[in-house]
C-alpha cells in the first residue's frame, strides 16, 4: 500500500509527495524569505495530508511535520536568526498558525480515513445471516402441564382455588361421600383398581369434594387437576391412567345458568372465542340435575357437538351430609378429561401419546398458545345478547337468580 516514510523529508517513495524545497539555512536572513518558507511548507503539508492513503501513513506524516523534529516545528529554530523583535513575533505567529492549520487538516483527514477503513473492515466481516442459530439447551413443560396451567389460570381468574387430593383414595371419598348407593351399577361405569377393600386408586377427581366440605363451609370455589385410574386396557381412546379437571362451587343461588356460563367461559378459554356449550341430561350420583356437556365451534368440529364432560348441581344429599342447607345453598360441579383439551384443540388422535414421553411429540407443544385472546369479552357479550333476547318475565327471574 501507500508509501512508507523513511524519515521525512529525506526520502519519500510516494512521488505524489514532492520533496519540499526550501532555502538553505544560512543563505539569507531576509524576513520575507522566512515567511515564504512557512507558506510553502504549509501548502506542501496540506497537499501531502490530502493525499495520504491510510491512517498509519497519516500518523507518520503527522510526526514528520509536527513532531519534535518535524519540518514545521523545525521552523521555529530559525527564530534565533531573526533579530528584529517585530519580525520575530510575526514569524513565530505565522509558524504557529501554519502548525494549527496542518494539525486540523490531519485530524479531519484522519477521521475520513478511519471511517473508510472501518467501512472496509466491516465489509470484510460479513456473515451469512441465513445460517442456523446456535441451538441452546431448553427445558420445557409437558403438554399436560401446559394444559393444567391454563386451566388453573382460567379458573383461578374466576375465583376458584386450586387444591389437590390423594391418588390413593379412600373408597369413602371416591364413592360413598359422592352419594353412590352401595352396590349400585353406577360403580360399574368405572372399573376400579382396588388396593384394599377401603382403598382405591381414585376413579375421579371429584373425590376431593368430601375432603373439602369437611374443612370448609360455603361460599367456596375449588378447582383441582389430577390423575385418575380406571382398570381398562390401553388403546387409542382408552387408558387406565388419565387426568381430570374437577371444579365445584357452593354459594347462595347457584344455578344451572351459572354452570353453563362458567363452562362456556372455560370452553372458550380453551378452544377459542366462538365456542358454544350444550347440556344433555346424564346421570352421575353426585349431581342433580346431572348433565353431560358438549361443545361446538365452526372452526374445530365443523359445527358438530363434541362431548367434553359431566356436570350438574351438587346433589342435596351431599350438601346435607356436610351440614350445608340445600334450601339456602346450592352448588355446581363439572369435570372433564385434561387430555380431551389438547386432543380436541390440536387434533391429537391417540390417547397413548400423552404418557409415552416421545419428545418428538412433546416438543411440538413448546409454542402452544396460552389462553385464547378476547375470551372474557366474548362470554360477556354472549350473556348480554341472551339477556336482551329474554322476555321481561325471564329477565325478572334472571335478576332473582343473580341477586
Amino acid at each position, binding site marked *: 500500500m501507500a508509501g512508507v516514510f523513511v524519515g521525512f523529508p529525506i526520502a519519500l517513495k510516494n512521488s505524489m509527495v514532492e520533496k519540499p524545497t526550501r532555502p538553505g539555512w544560512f543563505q539569507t536572513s531576509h524576513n520575507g524569505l522566512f515567511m515564504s518558507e512557512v507558506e510553502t511548507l504549509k501548502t506542501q503539508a496540506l497537499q501531502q495530508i490530502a493525499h495520504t492513503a491510510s491512517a498509519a501513513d497519516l500518523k507518520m506524516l503527522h510526526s514528520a511535520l509536527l513532531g519534535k523534529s518535524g519540518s514545521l516545528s523545525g521552523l521555529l529554530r530559525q527564530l534565533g536568526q531573526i533579530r528584529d523583535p517585530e519580525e520575530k513575533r510575526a514569524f513565530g505567529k505565522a509558524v504557529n498558525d501554519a502548525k494549527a492549520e496542518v494539525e486540523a487538516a490531519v485530524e479531519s483527514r484522519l477521521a475520513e480515513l478511519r471511517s473508510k477503513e472501518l467501512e472496509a473492515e466491516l465489509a470484510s466481516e460479513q456473515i451469512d445471516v441465513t445460517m442456523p442459530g446456535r441451538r441452546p*439447551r431448553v427445558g420445557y413443560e409437558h403438554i399436560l402441564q401446559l394444559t393444567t396451567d391454563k386451566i388453573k389460570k382460567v379458573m383461578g381468574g374466576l375465583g376458584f382455588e386450586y387444591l389437590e387430593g390423594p391418588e*390413593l383414595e379412600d373408597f369413602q371419598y371416591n364413592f360413598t361421600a359422592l352419594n353412590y348407593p352401595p352396590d349400585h*351399577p353406577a360403580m360399574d361405569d368405572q372399573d376400579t383398581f382396588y388396593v384394599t377393600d377401603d382403598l382405591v386408586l381414585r376413579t375421579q377427581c371429584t373425590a376431593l369434594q368430601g375432603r373439602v366440605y369437611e374443612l370448609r363451609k360455603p361460599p367456596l370455589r375449588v378447582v383441582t387437576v389430577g390423575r385418575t385410574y380406571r382398570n381398562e386396557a390401553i388403546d387409542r381412546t382408552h387408558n387406565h391412567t388419565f387426568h381430570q379437571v374437577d371444579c365445584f362451587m357452593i354459594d347462595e343461588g347457584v344455578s344451572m345458568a351459572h354452570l353453563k356460563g362458567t363452562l362456556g367461559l372455560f370452553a372458550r378459554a380453551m378452544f377459542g372465542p366462538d365456542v358454544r356449550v350444550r347440556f344433555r341430561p346424564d346421570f352421575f350420583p353426585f349431581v342433580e340435575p346431572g348433565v353431560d356437556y358438549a361443545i361446538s365451534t365452526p372452526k374445530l368440529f365443523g359445527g358438530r357437538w363434541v362431548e367434553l364432560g359431566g356436570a350438574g348441581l351438587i346433589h*342435596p344429599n351431599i350438601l346435607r351430609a356436610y351440614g350445608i342447607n340445600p334450601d339456602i345453598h346450592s352448588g355446581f360441579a363439572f369435570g372433564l378429561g385434561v387430555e380431551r383439551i389438547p386432543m380436541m384443540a390440536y387434533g391429537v388422535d391417540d390417547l397413548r401419546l400423552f404418557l409415552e414421553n416421545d419428545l418428538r411429540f412433546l416438543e411440538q407443544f413448546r409454542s402452544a398458545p396460552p389462553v385464547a385472546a378476547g375470551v372474557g369479552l366474548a362470554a360477556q357479550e354472549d350473556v348480554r345478547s341472551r339477556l336482551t333476547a329474554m322476555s321481561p318475565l325471564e329477565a325478572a327471574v334472571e335478576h332473582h337468580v343473580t341477586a
Partner: protein
Amino acid sequence: MKFPYSMLLDFVQTDLTAEEAGDLLTMAGFELEGIEEVEGEKVLDIKVMSNRGDGLSILGLAREVLAKEQDSVPTELYLNAASRFADRPAPTTPNPATATIETPDCNRFACRVFEGVTNGPSPDWIQTRLRKAGQRPISLFVDLTNYVMMELGQPLHAFDYDKLRGGRIVVRKPRPGETLTTLDGKEHELQPDQMMICDAERPVSVAGVMGGEETEVTAGTTRVLLESASFLNTSIRRTRKQLGLNTEASYRFERSVDPDGVVAAIERFSDLLGQAGSEIFDVYPGKVERQPVAVKMDRARVLLGMYIEDKQAQGYLVRLGMEVMGHGDPFYVVPPSWRPDIVAQEDLVEELGRVHGYEEIPELLPAGTTTLGGQRGQMEEVDRLREAAIRAGYIQIVSHSLRDLHPLDAPGERVEPRNPASPEMAYLRNSLLPSLADAARRNGGRDLHLFEIGKVFSRSSSGFGESRSIGFMSTGELIPSDRKGEAVPNATFFSLKGDLEAISHAVGRLLEASAPLEGDNRLHPSRQAQLVHQGAAVGVLGQIHPSVSEELRLPRETIVAELDVDALLSDSESQLALRPISRNPSIRRDIALLIDKAVPYREIDQAVIQSGGEILERHWLFDVFEGQGIPDGKHSLGIALQLRKFGDNLTDEEANQVRAKVVAALAQLGGATR
C-alpha cells in the same frame, strides 16, 4: 338398547324420522349411540343411564317422546300398556301352581300357566324384529319373553311346567350344598345370600338372572309356567356378580323394573301368544306407597336459572306419568312406580329442566361472594420448583404410575392394585427413576436432561404412603454441540448437583449432599450422595451404577436424582431476608491449598466461612488439581475469596489479614498453602 324403529312407532304416533327421534331421545338423556339400517329398517341403539331402568323398554322411551314432542300421540298399545292391560277379562282356568316368597329380596312374584301349547318357532314378524334388535330367535316361548321384555322392560321366564316338581314355586335363598346348572350349561355351587326360584324341592332358576337347564322349555314342552317378578336390585347385582353371569334380565333388574308392571307383562305375553292361559297367581309383599314430593317452583326456577311457568311445569310432570296434587307453592308430586329415582325436589327439577329443554338455559357467570382464586402455600411452591427445573434446562415428562418392576425401583414394600388388567400395570411406582430411564431409552438414550414431578407410593407397617417426588436424569452434552470438534461440557455428578442446588434455592430451600450412610444399590458406590435438608434426608443424587446403566443401555455417565418434594417443602417457606448491597469495591485473594483428599470439601468450606468473618463476601472453588508435583493422596485446591466492606473501602492490608486467618484455619485441617 337396540330396537327397530317400528317398535317405537307401535307405541307412539309421530312424524319424526328415526334420526329425529334419536336426537330427541338424546336430548332427553337417552343417548343415541348409533343408528343403522338392518333388513331395510332403521335400528336405533340407545344408551340408558344407570338410574333410568324404565328407559330399557320401548314403553319407557315412548313416554319420553310423548313428554317432549308436543305433536306426538299415544297409540292404543301405549294406552293399553299405560293402563297395564287392565281391561283384559280374567281367565276362568284356575292356576295349577302356587308361589310363596321366603326372602325380603323379592318384591313381587306372579305366574300364569299355559296348557296344551306347542313350542315351535315364533311368528316371522317377531323373529324379524328380534333379529333387527340383534337377538337370535330360539323358540316361541323364549322369543315372546324376550320380545315382551323389550316392549315393557319386564324380564319374564318360561318354565316347562311338567319339569317343575310339586306344582309349587318358592322364592328363597339356597340351602347348604344346593347346586344349579344354568341355561348356559354351567353348574354353580350356590351361596347362602343368593336368591333362587325353586320348585317344591330344589332351585330351578337364578332369580332375575338366568333360568336352569333342567326346567327350560324345549320342543317337547306342552305346559308352560310363565314367571314375571320384581326383585331387589342390590340382591340381583350381588348374585349375578358372584355367579359371573350378566344377562338382559339381570341388567334391567339391577337398574330398576316397574314392580307395578309385573302382571301387565303377563297379559301382553298372552295377547301375543293368543292364548289367555290360567288365572294369574300374584304375590306382592313389597308394595311401596310412593310418598309425595313437594316442589317449590321458585326454588326450581332459581336452580335451573330459567323460567318455567307453574302450569307448564305441572304439564310436563303429568306427561311423564306423575300425579300432581295441588296448585300452590309448593305443589306435590307422586312419582310413578317405574321412577324409583325420583325421591326429592331436585329430581323433579331435573325432569322439568330436561323436558323444557336445557338449551333454554342462559349462560351467566356466578354472582355472589367473591372468593380468592389461584393457589397458595405448598401448591404454589410446587409450581415454582417445577418452573425452576425447566429454567435449568430440563424437559418435563409425565409417565404412568402403574407399571412393572424395574432395576431403578426404590427399595421397600410395594403398593399393588388387586386386580390389574395386565402385568404392565401390576405395581404402583415407588420412584420416578424407572420412567425417566424408559423415557431416555425411548428418545435415543443420549444427550438428554429430563425430569418428572409426580406421586410415588410406598407401603409400611403403618400403612400406605403417597408423596410427591421430583426426579431427574441427566446424561451427555449439557449444551448441544454446534460445530465439528467443538468441546462442550457433559453432564456430571456436579452439573446435576449444581442444578439441584439452584432449583431448591428457587423455593428458598438449601440442599446439602453428604456421603450416604447406607449405599443405594442403584447408584455408583463412590459417586452417590444423600440429599439433606435441615438435617433430614430428602433424596438421593448419583451416577447410575455402571452395571445398571449397561443393563438399561444408557450411557455410563448417566446422573440421576430424586427428591421427596413433600419432605423438602414440609417446613414453612423460608422468609427472604434481603441484604443491603455494598457500593465499596471488593478485593480478591486466592489461596492454593495442598490438602488430603480425604478431607471433605464441606469442612474446608465451613472453615473458610467461619474464619473469613464479615468481610468475606463470597468464596468459591476455582481449581482442583492433582498429579505432577502433588503428593499421593493429596490434591491442590484453588479457593477464591471475595472480600468487601460495607460503607468503607477495604485496604490491601485488611484483605491480607483475612486471607491469613483463612489460611490459618485451613492449616488446622492439615492444609498447606503452596
